[in-house]
Each structure stands twice: as structure tokens, then as C-alpha cells.
């Protein structure tokens, strides 16, 4: 059968699209927008992979998944092996397949991206994870024998869950302390149901729990017990306490009623399920004219949430141009399809309230792009005299957040950056204190789920060395 010289396979440049809910339907519900590949389409998409001898895609993955390996399994129809291969390095495939910015990572380095048709790696990852869950045969990996070493993890978000997964497999005793009443961190309170169904987050957290990880919710490390108190009981601690206080623009009127941080707005809707008020008791306003300030994924999530809560008009107000939008292209497209109006090159300078203290109008300036700034993007410059006032009855500010202040405030001796994050060695994720590691938003400020998981992977490796006394002196 094997040919001496295989016939050169014609490269298939037709990237398979994934079915989505129609925009006119989805703006009326909170169900997931992207519906996932059917088996046949997944196999076709996987078959496009060139199986490069020296693959570049893995190098773009912060957790180093064997991407050609799991894609080959799909082509072969061996889906079980495929998902096992992913789980060797990624405990949360159903989540990463949905929310990773693949176009900036694995799909960017895929050789076919030169032809503008990279393999849809994220969709295939999601396909395998969802198929495994649908079949209900979740496999538990091979576990190392118990080491007797105890690890505490602060925060059940993507960083903490990754560390927990890696260290429990290596035989350590792992306990997670979560401040909120649900696990998942930003996956639960931040990313909306229509982009990442909460059942999937629960499923992946339950998987890690099934490996033997103990999880305590309603436990605020730094307040209920300090890190130092925990260190009397645990050999090492990983801090993944995540995002902290939202940033505001420092313009007049930001404390008016009807002005929300994206954290508040999304937490009301996602964690507290305010979109189902009054069945769920946390209220969320349903204003008719909403402005969302910012251009990242959180801004897109907020704008699309406002659409679903029944707003007549939702404006995304961003000070640079469309090309500089930090959000994933896919999310910006979804937002546009759902009717979000993009007010680009626009800078809010004042929020104006009514006599009862509610937001009524927003004053903005038009901007133009100048020379590139330190971020490499062209710097927005105000156009003099271009002020204008628009009526809004809600403004959501989605311009980022600082790291959570509780652990830095209550843990002496921990080196903290000017921006309030915990300083770590990027090669080990270790902090200035020898038995404390940290990763995710508590180190980076507002970053991505996968970068938090990447930090978790690095921390787990370093912690394992420490716990098994393999460290170089």
C-alpha cells in the first residue's frame, strides 16, 4: 500500500466554518452563539492539517498542547485518544477551545495562516472536549503515588485550576480556596453564558474535583485566613486571586447611577444570573440606550449582554480605530452582527447626570490617529472643538482592571509591582517569597484565560520541583 513517493496532497484551503445561532434569534437569548462542529465537519477540517514534521502551531500555545497529535487522532476517528492527548497538558479543553485567542496563538503560527486558512485548532479542541462530555466517558489520567506534600491554591479560576490539575496528578495533596460562591473565577463571573456556558465551566471544575482536589468556596484568603496562616499548614501556596478593582476614566460623572464597571455589569448578569431576574434575585437594569466604553473582549461581552437585555441601541465607544481594537476579530464581528454600533475614534470626556443622580448624557471628543506610541499602535489625538453630546441611560466602562488587592494588602514580604500585581519570576512563576507562587491576572492585570493557564503550568512545574526537593540550590 505504502507508495515510495506519496502523491503530493493538494492543500485544502477551505477552512470549515462553525454553525452559529442566527443573529435575529440569538439577540433574544443567552444561549451559546457558536454551536460547534458536527463530527463530519470536524474530520474534514482536521484532514486539512499538513501534519508538519516541525510543527509551529504548538509553539504558539502557552500550555504547549501536542496540536498535530490530537488533530491526527480526529482524522483517524480516534476521538478518545485525541482528548487524552490534549489533557496531557490542558485540563480545560472545552473552555480553551471557546475562549482562547487562537488567531493570536496556535492558528497564527500554523503554516496555513500564510494562505489565510489556518487550521481551526480551537474549534477542533472544543469538538473533542464536547464529544467526550456528551458521551459521558470522562477518563481520569494516570495519577502518581502520593507524595504527602500539601499545596493550597488561592482562587478557582483558570490559573488555580490548572495548577491544581497538574499537582494532583503528580501526587500532591491539593486544596483550593475560592472567595466567591461558585468556582471558575472570570469564567463564571466575567465571560457571558452565550460565549461560555456555565455548565461547561462546572463540568471542567468537577473533573478536577474528581481527581481528588478539595475545593472550599466562600473562603477569602487574606481575610478569612491569611496566606501566612495557611503556610503553617501547607508546604506551598499558589496565588491565582485574579482581577481586582475596575479602572475608570477619571472623568466627571463616573459615580452617577447607571454607570457601571464591566466587572459589576457582567457579574450581575453572569455569576448572579441577573438576566433571569426576578427568578434570580440580583437585579440588573435594562436600559434602552447603552454606551460601552472600551474595545477589548470584555467590552464586546458587555455590549452583547446589553443587546440581549433588550436595549434599543448599544454603542461601543472606542478611542482608536477599528484596526486597533484589542478584542478578538470574531467577537467584534459577532457584536456587529448583533447590531452593536461602533463609535470609533471617540473619547468620552464627561458623564452628565439628571437632577436625581442618574446618567443622562455623555460628552465625547472625536479623535484622529497620530504617530505610533509605546504600544506600537497609532496614538489617538483629540480633534480640537469636536465635542459632542449623546444621550445614554447607561454607560458600562470596560477599560480594564488592576490585580486584586487583598493578597498584596495582607501578605508581608511579597514584592508588588507599581500597578499592584504580585511580581514573579517569569520562568518559574515564583514570587519574592520562596514558598509562594502566583499567576494569572493577579500578576498580569487584565490578561487572557490561556495566559493564566500558562502561568499555572509554569508554576506547577516549579512547585513540583520544590515539593520533591529537586531544586538546584
Amino acid at each position, binding site marked *: 500500500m505504502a507508495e515510495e513517493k506519496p502523491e503530493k496532497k493538494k492543500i485544502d484551503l477551505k477552512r470549515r466554518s462553525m454553525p452559529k445561532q442566527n443573529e435575529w434569534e440569538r439577540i433574544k437569548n443567552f444561549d451559546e452563539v457558536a454551536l460547534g462542529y458536527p463530527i463530519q465537519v470536524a474530520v474534514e477540517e482536521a484532514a486539512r492539517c499538513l501534519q508538519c514534521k516541525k510543527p509551529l502551531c504548538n509553539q504558539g500555545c502557552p500550555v504547549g498542547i501536542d496540536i498535530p497529535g490530537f488533530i491526527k487522532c480526529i482524522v483517524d476517528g480516534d476521538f478518545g485518544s485525541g482528548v487524552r492527548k490534549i489533557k496531557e497538558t490542558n485540563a480545560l479543553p472545552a473552555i480553551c477551545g471557546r475562549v482562547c485567542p487562537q488567531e493570536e496563538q496556535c492558528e497564527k503560527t500554523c503554516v496555513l495562516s500564510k494562505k489565510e486558512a489556518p487550521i481551526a485548532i480551537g474549534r477542533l479542541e472544543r469538538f473533542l472536549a464536547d464529544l467526550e462530555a456528551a458521551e459521558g466517558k470522562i477518563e481520569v489520567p494516570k495519577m502518581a503515588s502520593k507524595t504527602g506534600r500539601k499545596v493550597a491554591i488561592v482562587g478557582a479560576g483558570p490559573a488555580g485550576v490548572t495548577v491544581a490539575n497538574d499537582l494532583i496528578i503528580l501526587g500532591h495533596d491539593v486544596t483550593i480556596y475560592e472567595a466567591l*460562591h461558585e468556582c471558575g473565577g472570570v469564567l463564571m463571573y466575567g465571560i457571558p453564558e452565550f460565549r461560555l456556558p456555565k455548565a461547561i465551566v462546572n463540568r471542567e471544575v468537577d473533573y478536577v474535583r474528581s481527581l481528588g482536589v478539595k475545593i472550599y468556596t466562600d473562603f477569602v484568603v487574606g481575610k*478569612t485566613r491569611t496566606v501566612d496562616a495557611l503556610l503553617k499548614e501547607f508546604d506551598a501556596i499558589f496565588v491565582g486571586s485574579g482581577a481586582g478593582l475596575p479602572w475608570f476614566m477619571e472623568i466627571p460623572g463616573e459615580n452617577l447611577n447607571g454607570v457601571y464597571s464591566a466587572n459589576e455589569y457582567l457579574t450581575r448578569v453572569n455569576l448572579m444570573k441577573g438576566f433571569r431576574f426576578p427568578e434570580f434575585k440580583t437585579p440588573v437594569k435594562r436600559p434602552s440606550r447603552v454606551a460601552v466604553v472600551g474595545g477589548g473582549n470584555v467590552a464586546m461581552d458587555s455590549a452583547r449582554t446589553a443587546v440581549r437585555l433588550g436595549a434599543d441601541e448599544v454603542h461601543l465607544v472606542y478611542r482608536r480605530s477599528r484596526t486597533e481594537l484589542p478584542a478578538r476579530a470574531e467577537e467584534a464581528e459577532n457584536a456587529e452582527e448583533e447590531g452593536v454600533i461602533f463609535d470609533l475614534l471617540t473619547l468620552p470626556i464627561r458623564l452628565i447626570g439628571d437632577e436625581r443622580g442618574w446618567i443622562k448624557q455623555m460628552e465625547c471628543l472625536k479623535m484622529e490617529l497620530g504617530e505610533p506610541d509605546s504600544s506600537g499602535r497609532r496614538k489617538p489625538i483629540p480633534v480640537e472643538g469636536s465635542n459632542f453630546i449623546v444621550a445614554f441611560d447607561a454607560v458600562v466602562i470596560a477599560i480594564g482592571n488592576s490585580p486584586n488587592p487583598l493578597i498584596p494588602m495582607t501578605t508581608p514580604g511579597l514584592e508588588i509591582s507599581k500597578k499592584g500585581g504580585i511580581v514573579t519570576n517569569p520562568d518559574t512563576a515564583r514570587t519574592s517569597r520562596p514558598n509562594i507562587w502566583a499567576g494569572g491576572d493577579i500578576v498580569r492585570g487584565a490578561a487572557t484565560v490561556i495566559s493564566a493557564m500558562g502561568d499555572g503550568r509554569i508554576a506547577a512545574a516549579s512547585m513540583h520541583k520544590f515539593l520533591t526537593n529537586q531544586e538546584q540550590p
Partner: protein
Amino acid sequence: MYKIIERRMIAPNLHEFTVLAPAVAAAAKPGNFVIVRPDQYGERIPLSVADWDGEAGTVTSIFMQVGQSTARLARLKPGDTIPTFVGPLGKETVIENVGTVLCVGGCYGIGSIFPVARALKEAGNRVYTVIEARSSFLLYWEDRLSKVSDKLFVITRDGTKGLKGHIDKIPELMQRAGIVPNLVIVNGCTFQMMRVSQVTKPLAWKTIVNMNPIMIDGTGMCGVCRLSVGGKMKFACVDGPDFDGHEIDWAEFLARRKSYNPEEVDPLRRSGCQSHF
């Protein structure tokens, strides 16, 4: 799940609420609050701590039934459970020996000022306490407060006990007793904290208020509890809840405090005590 040890109405609409939460009880300090969720559909609401027992592992708060969440809490019986009881949150009240301290409590704050007064007394201060209510039947814990205070003063608006009048009679009351406090600490409804701050400002009596904004996570993430203090944006859950009452933008705070009234309170408004919200 957290077990309810006690829930009883100690004055009309005011409930004493004791929950088994050993980890919280072991760490609680004066001025802290907890976040409570009455049931799995419930919202997260902050309650100031009024007492705790580290050995028994219990934490006590006083809450006023005003909205739908507190209405649900008010229906709980000993032995029932609630899904969320997390804390202690917020910075604790600074306890130092400053000489003479005036503690002021109203509404649920008659409860939460108690551990503040107790700690200040233990720190060696002369502690004078003023509690205020519309009428004497709305007072509680007078015996407990008396024990930790050098003197307990009462103000009622209808004059059924103590001095007749509003909380802004405090300067008059202190003048008559010949007391000049080095520090005033107020726990109570927003209106009371604002009025006390307004009357102590011209007298230059340093006044600390234990703020009570709307909160969700209570751990420095959502930003709903923001307020203006000295012209700067502060977050009550991590920067407070204690702030200098003379520096707070009260009009803004009152407006923010009421932002969910239509959803929360109006359907349940019974007490007629609108200024307490």
C-alpha cells in the same frame, strides 16, 4: 451550607441573626462585614458583624428587613441553612487609645457599634455611647452597650426615652455632659452617619463612619461600592468600610444607595422608615 443558630426579631423589623461559621468567627474584628446569600437564587448582601464567639464558631449580625433579600433572611429559623456566608470582609475599625471616644449607633448599627465600643474600652479609652431610634421600642442591646461604655446616652425622636430629638442633638448632649470626644465613630443608616458627620464637622471632632453601600462580591472586584472620599474614588469593600465622615460626598452616596430601590424595596416597603435605607 451555613447553619442558622438564632434568628429572632429583637425590635420591630430588626433581627438578631447568628450563624455557625467557625472560620469567619475566628477572624472577625470590629468594623468588618460579611456577605450573605439567603438561598441559591439570592443576591449577595453585606451585613455588618455585631458580635462573634470564636469558641462556639458563631457570628452575629443585626439586620433590618427592608428589601426582598432581608425579607428572606427574616423568615429563616434556627437549624435552617444558607448557601453563602463569607468573611470577615473590609478593613477592621482602627482601635487605639485616643482618650475619649464617642460611639454612635442607630438601626442595625446599635448592634455593630457594640464590638467597636467593647474593643475601644479594652484599649483603655473612655467610651461614651449614643444610640438613637424613632421610639424607645426600637432600641435593643442597651444592657450590652452599657457594660462596655462609661455612659450610655439615648435619643428618641418621640421622647419616649432619653433626650427627645434627632441624632443632630449630639453636640448639645455632649455639651451638657461636659464631654469633648477625641474621636467619633458612627455605625448606622446612611442618613444618620451623614447627619452626625455634618454636626461634628464645625466642631472639628474627627468622625469615622462605617459605610454601607450596595455590594456584590465584596472582595475588591466589581466596583459597585465606590464612593467619593476627599474627591477621590474609594471602594468600601477593600479601602473601607470605615472612612472619614467629613470627607464623604454624601449626596452622591445617598443617590447610589438608592439605585436599585425600585427592584429591591418598593414592592416590599412596609416600615415607612424610608430614611433608613
